[in-house]
């Protein structure tokens, strides 16, 4: 029996990918449409990008989103790596079941529940809603994703490397920083990037936990979208897609160079 894709396999892959990419491609294409109408192609133009950069509200929201993303992803990475270490290496400690439950539940928890519950917490402890509450909320729901990314790498990590470091005279904590961390760094960086993107992307939790003056980009886009399709939104979407694509290409190149 030969391995390899049959005609049916090829068609499945082709249709699947077309379904996944067609809307994105159309969105990008129409962001360069000079007409405001979606169904008419009126020629190539970058005018929507110009109006976009002139839109202070949108730019402020973008800046807010990037700041929230970077900070919350960093917090989530520290906590997520610690959680992964405890889960992979901690054995069966007291409270492990509750702990792993809390770590994995946010992966599937509907955002409305997470958002609402966090808001009630902030209200209960009298924390004014704003930049910091969104950061706390995002760090909480993204740390699970960091844990999953790092856990996989940690599971295949050869423990004798750490033992060798200790054997050669480094205390356990130093062995972790000198040997373990450099070797799981790609997974940690990947976890950070995932947390950052999830934070950038979040509408629901941010809507619940943000306050006046801390409106994020997805919240702005959402309110614009509710009013209908606009080429300006197409333009900012294209920019977001472009920057993510660029980040992935850079990551790929760096990784390819490292392994070469």
């Amino acid at each position: 029996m030969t391995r390899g894709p049959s005609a049916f396999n090829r068609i499945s892959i082709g249709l699947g990918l077309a379904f996944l990419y067609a809307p994105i491609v159309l969105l990008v294409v129409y962001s360069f449409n000079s007409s405001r109408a979606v169904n008419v192609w009126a020629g190539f133009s970058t005018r929507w990008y110009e109006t976009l950069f002139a839109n202070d509200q949108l730019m402020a929201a973008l800046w807010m989103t990037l700041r929230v993303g970077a900070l919350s992803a960093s917090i989530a990475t520290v906590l997520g790596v610690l959680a992964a270490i405890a889960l992979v290496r901690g054995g069966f400690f007291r409270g492990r079941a509750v702990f792993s439950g809390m770590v994995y539940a946010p992966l599937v928890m509907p955002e409305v529940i997470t958002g609402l519950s966090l808001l009630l917490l902030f209200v209960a402890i009298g924390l004014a809603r704003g930049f910091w509450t969104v950061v706390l909320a995002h760090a909480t729901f993204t740390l699970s994703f960091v844990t999953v990314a790092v856990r996989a790498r940690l599971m295949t990590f050869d423990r004798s490397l750490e033992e060798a470091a200790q054997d050669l005279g480094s205390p356990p904590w130093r062995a972790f920083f000198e040997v373990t961390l450099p070797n799981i760094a790609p997974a940690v960086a990947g976890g950070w990037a995932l947390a950052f993107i999830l934070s950038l992307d979040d509408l629901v939790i941010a809507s619940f936990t943000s306050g006046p003056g801390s409106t994020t980009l997805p919240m702005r886009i959402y309110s614009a979208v509710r009013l209908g399709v606009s080429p300006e939104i197409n333009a900012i979407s294209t920019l977001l897609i472009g920057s993510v694509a660029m980040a992935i290409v850079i990551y790929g190149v760096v990784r390819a160079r490292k392994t070469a």
Partner: protein
Amino acid sequence: MKQIGAVRSSFAPWNDPASVPLVRFEGVTKRFGDMTAVDDVSLSIYEREFFALLGPSGCGKTTLMRMLAGFETPDAGRITLGGEDLAGIPPHKRPVNMMFQSYAIFPHLNVEKNVAFGLRMEGMEKSAVKARVEEMLALVKLEKLGARMPHQLSGGQRQRVALARALAKKPKLLLLDEPLAALDKKLREETQFELTDLQVELGMTFLIVTHDQDEAMVLADRIAVMDHGRIVQTGTPGEVYEAPANRQVAEFLGDMNIFEAVVDSVEPPMARLSGEGMKFFVQDDDCPAAGSKVFLSVRPEKMRISLDPPPAKTPNVIAGEIWDIGYLGDWTTYLVEIAPDRRVRVAQANATRHVERPMSWDDKVFVSFDPDAGVVLTS
């Protein structure tokens, strides 16, 4: 313990009551849950000795070594190094270094930095580190590969890096966990000799863990044979091979023909035995009294095989039929059926290229052995 022949070499501190061991295990026990990995082990290793822990996988030899390195804590007993109790001393503070079975070479550091790691942890000055790394790389013949990353090295080179790294701190004791298991046969044999040379040259104490009896015999001054967490026998390679303590050791180290027998009479140093319908005449100082049930063991290479019957009055002759032949080039192994479903193994060195009348399957043959070839075992 049985002694055969003279003591092999002049280096034998274990026979000198005045010498003080470097490492001492005293009644050490380690349990993992219900499983007793190491069971009441007492053992002494002397300075400048090359000591091997030999046994099948799961016999507790690695656990014993890991307790010395500090990665496991004994449940009972104590371990001393140079007279100092190691209890409570973490691995990074023990003057012991280990070469790991996987080599555990840090993948993110180049060869030089791997070797320098332990020195850096010690806080050694940079110029001194550089000099020592160069010295170590020269020692293992890797001078030119200092800048290479681990994934650019062959298996043999990785093994050398691991060795250089473990030796760099000049430990009182070097632990080697199956150091050659990952190498192919030829390279393994070469490396074995290099390791012994290195150990003599550096004047260090080596403790190796291995499941490979050839490796243990080639490398070690003394071998401790372990099974089920206990040490079954400790001795020089010659002692454990030629005078095994029991059938278990006998069969673990090489092949052994074993006959169940009863002692008929003893006239030291000779003894007469009978069993499996045969009479045996053997020379063994430690043969138990007449009437005892014993096991007579004879190594295949200490047996002779011939088509013609040996001269009359030759002791220990067994008639049989060739059941199978295994030609190995340097040796040929014959399986000779001496009774229905009862076979003995005879090994013959192929000293000449041509044999006038080669033996073949189903040939009627005679197997014999000298009285001093047999060892009488009680268990």
